[in-house]
């Protein structure tokens, strides 16, 4: 984009070696490093403020490093909010949704990709149409269903609709459709039934797809806010996302406290991402190429 002259030179001597390219990547590094700083700054700033005193967090010019870094805000969060329970609630909701989607979506995805049955295309079309409808169109009736099941203000109520996913079904169908048929055929010839073929041959092959689905579901579920906000009422029943959303009205000006709560809420996903980076990126990329 920037320097066309050296590009021409490279065109003339395509194999002219590394020196040239290195020189040219200079601006690229500059842009990427500057960009990274912008991307990461809010997260770093959040951690810094969480270590400051309330007065420091509100001073101008801003305090870039507290005089006495303190974890007081973190202890305060645990004292003032049932945050351990909220983290547990978030975990339960996330685990339930992920488990549900892994089971249900891979079953349905496999059936759509490989099994022949009447009404298949109709059903698949119906499932896909769900993808096209914005979430707001489901929320009011969903809430009433949860209400009639007496699951308002419970983690099960938050989790339930998310056990099923049109998107996940579609993702798994695309994945199964891309797998070679030969192994399956061989298993059939060996006399394996549908269940065994699915569970023992296809499911292990679909592992990357399942990992992608897991990552996308976990990420969505942990950070999901609107639905838990609707279904849960009290602080002690809320997942951490909804709790932080309502917190803003109350402790709005106790910045270290809010930042500490935010850091705690985000930490699990950040750690998970750091550990499973490759899978995260492969999962998203898979969605792009297959989804």
């Amino acid at each position: 984009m920037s320097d066309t002259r050296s590009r021409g030179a490279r065109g003339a001597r395509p194999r002219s070696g590394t020196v040239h390219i290195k020189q040219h990547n200079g601006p690229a590094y500059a842009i990427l490093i500057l960009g990274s700083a912008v991307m990461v700054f809010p997260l770093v700033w959040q951690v810094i403020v969480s270590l400051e005193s309330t007065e420091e967090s509100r001073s101008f010019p801003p305090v870039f490093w507290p005089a006495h870094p303190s974890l007081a805000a973190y202890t305060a969060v645990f004292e003032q909010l049932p945050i351990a329970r909220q983290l547990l609630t978030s975990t339960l909701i996330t685990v339930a949704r992920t488990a549900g989607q892994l089971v249900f979506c891979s079953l349905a995805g496999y059936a759509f990709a490989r099994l022949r049955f009447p009404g298949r295309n109709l059903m698949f079309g119906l499932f896909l149409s769900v993808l096209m409808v914005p979430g707001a169109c489901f929320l009011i009736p969903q809430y009433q269903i949860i209400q009639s099941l007496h699951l308002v203000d419970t983690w099960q109520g938050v989790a339930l609709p998310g056990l099923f996913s049109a998107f996940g079904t579609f993702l798994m169908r695309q994945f199964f459709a891309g797998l070679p048929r030969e192994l399956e055929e061989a298993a059939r010839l060996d006399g394996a039934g549908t269940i065994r073929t699915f569970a023992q041959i296809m499911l292990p092959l679909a592992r990357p797809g399942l990992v992608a689905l897991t990552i996308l579901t976990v990420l969505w579920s942990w950070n999901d806010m609107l639905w838990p906000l609707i279904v849960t009422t009290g602080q002690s029943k809320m997942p951490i996302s909804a709790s932080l959303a309502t917190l803003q009205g109350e402790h709005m000006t106790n910045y270290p406290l809010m930042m500490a709560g935010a850091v705690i809420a985000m930490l699990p996903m950040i750690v998970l991402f750091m550990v499973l980076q490759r899978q995260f990126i492969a999962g998203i990329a898979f969605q792009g190429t297959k989804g």
Partner: protein
Amino acid sequence: MTALTAAGLAGARVKGQPEPGGRPVGRRRATRFIESGWGWAFILPTAIGLGVFYIVPAFTTIWFSFSSWGAFGGHEFTGLDNYRHLVTDPDIGYALVNTLLYTLMLLCGIPLAIYLAALINREKLKGKGVFRTLYFLPVVTMPAAIAMVWRLIYNGQFGVLNYALSLVGIQGPFWLQDPRWALLSIGVIGVWSSLGYNMILFSAGLQAIPKELYEVAMIDGATRGQQFRHLTVPLLSPTIFFVTILTIINGFQVFDLIFLMAGRSNPAIDRVQTLVWLFYQDGFYSHNMGYGSVIAVLIFLLTAVFTAIQFSVQRKWVNYV
């Protein structure tokens, strides 16, 4: 690889999918019957789940949109009253414009994501992994949590942003309170949090482009700019199409950031309220679920229209190899 994307998004739906082949013709009926049974058994849980929680509710919402609700439940059919109110409600007009503007800002993030993905994909660039991690980090953050620090950054009195501006002699505004800046400020957060995600998608698309094509282009003396325009963009177009659809759908549904960044007494609320925000305010805050349903229907129509437009013009610019 990338060609599969298109098949995935457009083809599969339109054409259905190829019949499982390779079976001897004239298989016994019983086998097919059993397979049908398994097919239905496999999709049954999802069919019930999606039916109960998504498909039926979508129709229920349409039905609710013709009704009015009491303070403590109970609703009566009121015909087109909600729709009549909808067209005269100034808040809806604001929300519609704001939603479109916000989506437009997100769309502006797409070229940026392509550009950065192209930079990261350069051969011999060191630290690809580190850059990818750093750019992706905002994607895994929780909106409810990250909004807090953005509020602080944007604070008109002691925010870091205004501090940085003051160093170059600019007196920054109250970003989130100023009707001229509030939506833009929130849009920046939207771009910030989706940039890494889009970069990964574009990266995957770029990697699927055969390197030989670039070598040929270089031998032909094409500049990098020309390569980008005539090679990269057309070959990337299925991914661009996919990301555009995704961005529009997400943009039309923006709620979290608006809810978190602007309260009802925010002087800029007219300029930042969006359709889903109004849906929540009317449907759940004011307990007017009939009116909330009308807004939901409006969001659906808007999404449908824009997705349809996208699909109808895709033939003109999306290049399936």
